[in-house]
């Protein structure tokens, strides 16, 4: 297990907090809490060690498109990059409901 921390520039706080996903095989859980405009802070706890660069790339791409100012807690159980991106987008969508 490995814990990773990232920060990205972000200027749009989401309307409200959101929770999606489950810490199950090939999946992850995301807790998103709105923060003041400025940064998106991401803490990743992942069951798979050694993928720091992949995480950075996946998250960089997401936050380049969605500048969501929030604290993100990701509890990952081996999700692929595609699943991570889908869950992030789902969290943003949920908060707009």
């Amino acid at each position, binding site marked *: *297990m490995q814990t990773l921390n990232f920060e990205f520039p972000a200027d749009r706080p989401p309307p409200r*907090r959101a*929770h999606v996903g*489950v*810490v*199950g*095989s090939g*999946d992850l*859980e995301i*807790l998103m*809490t709105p923060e003041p405009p400025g940064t998106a802070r991401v803490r990743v*706890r*992942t*069951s798979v060690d050694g993928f720091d660069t992949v995480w950075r790339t996946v998250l960089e791409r997401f936050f380049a498109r969605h500048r969501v100012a929030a604290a993100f*807690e990701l*509890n*990952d*159980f081996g999700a692929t990059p595609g699943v991570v991106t889908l869950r992030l987008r789902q969290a943003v969508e949920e908060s707009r409901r």
Partner: protein
Amino acid sequence: MTSPPPAADGPTDWTAILARTGFIELDARARATALLDDGTARELCGPFDRIESPWLEPQGVVPQSDDGVIVVKGRLDGRPAVVIAIEQAFQGGGIGEVSGVKIAAALSLAARDSRDGTPTVAVLLLETGGVRLQEANLGLATVAEVCSALLELRALQPVIGVIAGTLGCFGGMSIAAGLCSTLIITAEGRLGLDGPQVIESEAGVAEFDASDHTLIWSIDGGAQRTRTGLADVLVLDDVTAMRSAVIEAMERGVPGEHRSRRIGELRARLEAVDPTDPPAPADLAAVWAHAVPREGDRP
């Protein structure tokens, strides 16, 4: 639409299967909400309370923010109810210190509310392999607390157990299932104290072949458990059918005598089985139907 219960041995009713909305395909939070009346669900100790297990991270296991147990209060056909759902995708539904205490506390609070003039029914969604190995002793201790709180509540209000999925309900939590006022199960569901793989690894493949699915379901499966009276209601894996079955169980109220109190009957059943020449699973219901408690072993 209310789906008919599946025939125990009959042909599969495909139209019913195609028309249904699978209950077990929902995640635990959605299952709990689906049982309650629309718009009444309110989660207690949710993900943002961050009451996760403190024991997993030091052992290199990623925790989940709700520790895999979702407690939702609301109304069931207008009556106050609490639904406690175990998320089987997280650690195989394994019960640890936090998740176990969440279940026990929810049952105790329902008992307190029931005594204080708000009768509160409890529904347990038991998709679990039992105690989580990473929290072995603490998990076992909380299962004892769960059983104790369940016994406290079931004297006042029905406690309804549901086993919907193929993961089944095993280990310590199968004891809690056995204590429920009514136990609802699907044909895909399984119930047993030790799971097939545990039996195979402890007693050998000759005792129980954990790769033989037909054998496993003929013993642990929902149809067999209902036929032999160890579960009460066999339902189709469908949201509407499940909700109807739970409401019916609630309306039946507290049973005069719980299954787990019928010791004489259970003892007679054990005596009716010869371990050197055990009956075939299909014959067990008939063997047990003739098992009569001895004089002096009746309530």
